[in-house]
């Protein structure tokens, strides 16, 4: 990649504000398409399912969990790198974080929202989901806090709140900067959002302190969220799910897929918002290294899981393992191994890491692989439980596939709206990486 000339402070503002206010037909086309797709492929099938029953999905008696829950875990996983990565990189003061973290955090937020929606879709009676929330009611019946599902509810609530706060606090100075450049309804909106930020040294200082604290809080929270998600499964005594390694396994998997998601997103942002000067090959290179590390870690834990099952000597564990490796879903399993453990090894070559297109391909493949992983965790274990007489096979139906595609479209929708409201690149932090502005601009 050619090295672009570093922009000036003013250019930063111009560029970023331009992404907010200048909207071309292509944007509307994209938004319209995404909206349409999400309505047709997500909301309509969901409505149909609400009317008739979850039986529209391919789930059946031993496989009571199917792709909806896999979607949930997938989106939760995708949500993981945004805020978590941003927080980790903030604490370790990696300068290359600054151009990407805003979008990454937005990804977290939206992925979380989609994940919660997936829970709605998954439930047999979605209209009673509020029963799982702790609020005083006349039945004097509270939710069951012993349930790992309730850990989930609490963890996701905390994570959603935490990452929104983190995103918002970090964006206040940029809201202020945008406030001064726009007029009309936007002016009012950003005036409200910026809370009267002036950029005084005191404000900057408080922001810095608060932001660091938030980052410190977000990291254990994010880790706990995916651990808790893993406990939904690991706390059962189902062979193939009942593994102590599940929490780290899920966390690593989540960061892995999240990081890959960031790479994909960065590629798209850079291409469609012409942010070549902010998102550079350095970023891709660094993320590539991270991906390589994560892929190795992920592969290691995967092997660990397989070995513990194997060593257990229990018929149920070994059968589940056998089924995973060589059974009905074996093509999926080996596909996952290929996508998540073998292909990413190519990242060891620097050329691969710095070539945008290879990075895009690898990151997309990783996320496909990670989706397969989530699906396999559920299907291979639930279809091979303790009583062989009750074994069964699960295949997703068209409704499920449509809802997954629809949820991706919905995510894109959210994101497209987001980039028009929140500066998708943190202006003030990008400026920090630039030279002090020239006297004559």
């Amino acid at each position, binding site marked *: 990649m050619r090295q672009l000339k570093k922009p*000036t*402070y*003013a250019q930063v*503002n111009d560029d970023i504000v331009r992404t907010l206010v200048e909207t071309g037909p292509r944007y509307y086309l994209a938004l319209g398409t995404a909206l349409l797709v999400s309505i047709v492929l997500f909301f309509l099938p969901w409505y149909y399912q609400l009317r008739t029953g979850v039986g529209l999905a391919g789930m059946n008696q031993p496989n009571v969990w199917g792709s909806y829950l896999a979607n949930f875990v997938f989106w939760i996983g995708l949500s993981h790198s945004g805020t978590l990565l941003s927080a980790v990189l903030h604490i370790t003061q990696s300068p290359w974080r600054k151009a990407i973290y805003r979008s990454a955090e937005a990804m977290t937020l939206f992925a979380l929202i989609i994940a919660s929606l997936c829970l709605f879709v998954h439930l047999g009676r979605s209209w009673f989901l509020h029963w799982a929330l*702790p609020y005083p009611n006349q039945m*004097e*019946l*509270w*939710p*069951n*806090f*012993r*349930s*790992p599902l*309730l*850990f989930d509810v*609490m*963890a996701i*609530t*905390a994570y959603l*709140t*935490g990452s929104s*706060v*983190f995103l918002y*606090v970090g964006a*206040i*100075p940029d809201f202020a*900067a945008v406030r*001064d*450049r726009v007029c009309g309804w936007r002016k009012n909106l950003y005036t409200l959002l910026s*809370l*009267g*930020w*002036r*950029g*005084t*040294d*005191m*404000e*900057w*200082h*408080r*922001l*810095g*302190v*608060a932001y660091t*604290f*938030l980052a410190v*809080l977000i990291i254990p*929270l994010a880790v*706990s969220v995916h651990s*808790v998600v893993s406990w939904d499964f690991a706390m059962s005594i189902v062979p193939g799910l009942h593994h102590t390694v599940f929490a780290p396994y899920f966390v690593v998997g989540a960061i892995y897929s999240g990081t890959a998601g960031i790479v994909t997103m960065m590629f798209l942002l850079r291409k469609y918002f012409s942010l070549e000067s902010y998102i550079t090959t350095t970023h891709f290179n660094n993320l590539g290294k991270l991906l390589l590390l994560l892929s190795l870690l992920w592969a290691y834990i995967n092997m660990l899981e397989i070995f513990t099952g194997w060593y257990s000597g229990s018929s149920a564990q070994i059968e589940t393992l056998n089924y995973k490796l060589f059974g009905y879903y074996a093509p999926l399993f080996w596909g996952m191994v290929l996508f998540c453990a073998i292909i990413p090894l190519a990242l060891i070559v620097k050329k691969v890491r710095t070539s945008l297109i290879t990075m895009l391909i690898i990151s997309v493949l990783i996320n496909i692989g990670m989706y397969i992983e989530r699906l396999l965790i559920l299907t291979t274990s639930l279809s091979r439980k303790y009583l062989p007489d009750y074994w069964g096979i699960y295949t997703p139906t068209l409704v499920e596939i449509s809802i997954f595609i629809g949820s991706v479209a919905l995510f894109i929708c959210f994101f497209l709206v987001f980039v028009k409201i929140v500066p998708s690149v943190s202006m*003030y*932090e990008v*400026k*920090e990486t630039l030279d*002090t*502005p020239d*006297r004559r*601009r």
Partner: protein
Amino acid sequence: MAAELLGLFSHADQALKAAGGLRDTGFQEISLMSPTPLHGVEQVLGRKTSAIKRFTFFGMLTGLLAGFLLAAGTATLYLLPTGGRPIIPIPPYLVISYEVGILFAVLATLFGFLVSARLPALRERHYTPETHIDRFGILVTCSSEQDAERARTIILAAGAEEIRQLEYLGKKSHEQ
């Protein structure tokens, strides 16, 4: 008659120099506005550390306690044995406690930040859009004409591009 002076600089070091100069001359109410956080400004202006960490700490403590109490308390309101487990099992409730703890800590940190940074601004305060782009501003409150003159000199000497004299809006412009 009190007034406020706003000096605009192109370079951070100039602004810092002006700030240092002003402080040395005895000005107390100085704010430095910048498009990015400036390092070293705390030493130059002699800022104290903030109270945010206390908010976070106590938020965390409250949350941990509240989480556990929520789980344990609601379970004892209506005894429903499940799975042969105790009504108040420690490990699962610690998870709840942990999540609520972090949630409260996050909210407390946000609250602490807003309080200590005096945000949201409830009344009008001086600022200039340039400092959000590429200028560095110094806002200083002068209690008299003489003070203002002295400050103006110091700011210009540091290399300010522009100086504006503004109406005095009260003490709230500069917060520690």
